[in-house]
């Protein structure tokens, strides 16, 4: 198992190198003249030349890339244009909010989607199955910004049950910072009042964000369970007298979940990109809403840093998913 994890980490290195190259190209090549962009709209050619020299844009590309890698290694992305603070500290402060939101969504999507998909497969072609399939198509197709606004109108403005925006009531001190995740920190310090407040704030954004993932997890689980139920070992389990409930909820489900875990790793990518919109709507102080304002204000450094951080998180999540996959299916660890 250790060998498997080490190998998996090694395999992630090329991906991370690719990420560096991509972001480098994004920064230096896509804006046709980054020096002009940096110098401002009314800059004279002399000023642009000065910027070019100051930033090293007159150096050969490979040298620029080496300098860039050095900057990334030192986590030196410069200051943000909007906040005028180091981009790195902005992100460090906002990252836990995004992690909390995406993981809450993923957890919800898995906990609801897997049983739904299993039931749809067990009652294959029943009314429940048909309804589930229609609803999940809806879940995949629905625009999250539209759905979020409907939720806000109904549950915050009309019924007043849930807070409209933000992660925690303004003016109240948030839970003691241990992990940065409010739900976890409030539990660790046994402040259930704070947990309840944080929970109420995360419900709508997490639910909105989870829709797409929930739908695809449910559909994947359904397909997986249907396929697994055709396997010889299921027919054998039946003939050998295992109880039907145990066959489905223990033996079949485990095999289907193995297939679904890989899917969850891929889902994480779409989840992060949807988080950008959801955070902006709910004013969630995470990396996504930061990215939106950075893009709107052409804050290149911030955009770059967000891209890198999200890329690294995505790589880490997929390594974790692969390790979980290997733990659930002993054959995987042995083939690598």
């Amino acid at each position, binding site marked *: 198992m250790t060998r498997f994890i080490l190998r998996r980490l090694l395999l992630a290195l090329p991906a991370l190198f690719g990420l560096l190259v991509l972001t480098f190209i994004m920064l230096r090549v896509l804006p046709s003249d980054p020096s002009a962009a940096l110098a401002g709209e009314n800059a004279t050619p002399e000023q642009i030349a000065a910027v070019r020299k100051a930033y090293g844009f007159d150096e050969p590309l490979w040298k620029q890339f080496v300098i860039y890698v050095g900057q990334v290694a030192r986590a030196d992305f410069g200051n943000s244009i909007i906040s005028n603070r180091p981009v790195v500290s902005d992100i460090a402060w906002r990252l836990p909010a995004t992690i909390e939101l995406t993981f809450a969504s993923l957890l919800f999507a898995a906990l609801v989607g897997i049983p739904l998909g299993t039931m749809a497969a067990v009652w294959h072609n029943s009314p429940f199955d048909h309804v589930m399939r229609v609803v999940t198509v809806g879940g995949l197709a629905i625009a999250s910004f539209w759905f979020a606004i409907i939720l806000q109108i109904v549950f915050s403005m009309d019924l007043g049950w849930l807070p409209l925006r933000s992660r925690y009531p303004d003016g109240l001190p948030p839970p003691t910072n241990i992990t940065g995740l409010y739900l976890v920190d409030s539990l660790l310090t046994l402040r259930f009042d704070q947990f309840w407040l944080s929970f109420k704030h995360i419900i709508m954004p997490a639910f909105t964000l989870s829709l797409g993932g929930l739908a695809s997890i449910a559909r994947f689980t359904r397909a997986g369970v249907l396929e697994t139920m055709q*396997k*010889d*070992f299921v*027919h*054998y*389990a*039946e*003939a*050998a*007298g*295992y*109880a*039907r409930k*145990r066959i489905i909820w223990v*033996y079949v489900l*485990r*095999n289907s979940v*193995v297939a679904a875990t890989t899917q969850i790793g891929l889902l994480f990518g779409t989840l992060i990109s949807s988080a950008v919109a959801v955070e902006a709507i709910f004013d969630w102080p995470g990396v996504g809403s930061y990215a939106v304002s950075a893009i709107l204000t052409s804050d290149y450094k911030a955009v770059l840093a967000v891209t890198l951080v999200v890329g690294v998180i995505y790589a880490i999540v997929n390594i974790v998913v692969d390790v979980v996959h290997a733990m*659930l*299916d*002993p*054959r995987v660890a*042995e083939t690598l």
Partner: protein
Amino acid sequence: MMLEKPASVLEIRDLSVSVGTDEGEARILDNVGLSLMPGSIHGIVGESGCGKSTLIRSILGILPKRGRATHGSIMLGERNLLSLPADALQKDVRGRAIGFIPQDPFQALNPVFRVGTQLLENVRTPGDSKATREAKRAHVISLLKAVQLPDAEHALDRYPHQFSGGQRQRLLIAAALAAAPGIILADEPTTALDVTTQLQILKLLRGLAIERDLSMLFVTHDFGVVAQLCDTVTVMYAGQTVESGPVAQVLKAPFHPYTQMLLACHPERAEELAGIPGAVPSPLRPPTGCRFSPRCPHARAECTAGQPPRVAPQPGHAVRCVLHLDEAAA
């Protein structure tokens, strides 16, 4: 005067099973009968598609969704399995009164669970405290030793893919024995194995049957296996039982033309390789009467009039064929 027959442990009478398909009802089994005598190994022989698997599924009560028994009975002692409710079949019959050994040991074990988890599933004792779990483990390990699995102590903590095909079949045999059933149903348990392993497994089954006083139904397409293992045999063709009797008699002097031709197909027995012209009929539109009649060199008009009655030209050796009506009468 007829002698009192000893009671069979499993008695199938006039069993007909239909499965609904998109093209109509398919009559997979047609008036099938067989009896399994206590302590004996009974072979069921036939080509693929003759209804062997459906027969097994009927006994275990796991017919496909659109399949149902339309006629007949399957008596396990005093109980008719066809009229037992589903949960009674699961709790008292499958894995309990009747142990099952599957065809393909490579596919029958769930690859993502430890062997122990799966084998302990078959051991059902009331209560589930830690103490009984230890007792269950010890019981299964003793079974693994009985089936001569190497390193039986550690086998339960390993995964199926860490065993060879023959070892996996031993695991499955141990699983079938777990609840100490009186009857073992073996569905071509050696087909997926290579020849040397096949022989070991057959010897093991024979030994276990004697040692544990088991009655065994052994499904196969291979007369060689029947000759090595079985006491009695039933030959099936296209969902009908055509002949049954003691193995020595059926092999040496088969009555039914189908049995004769099937035996002639066996490369070790025939001087010249023979085949059977024609193909197995579709169960959707089977021939009337004897289903073998379209391929039978001795077919007469009366063959298609109705299924021939079961006659026993020799005691214990019965056949359903018009050719033998006179002999039985004589």
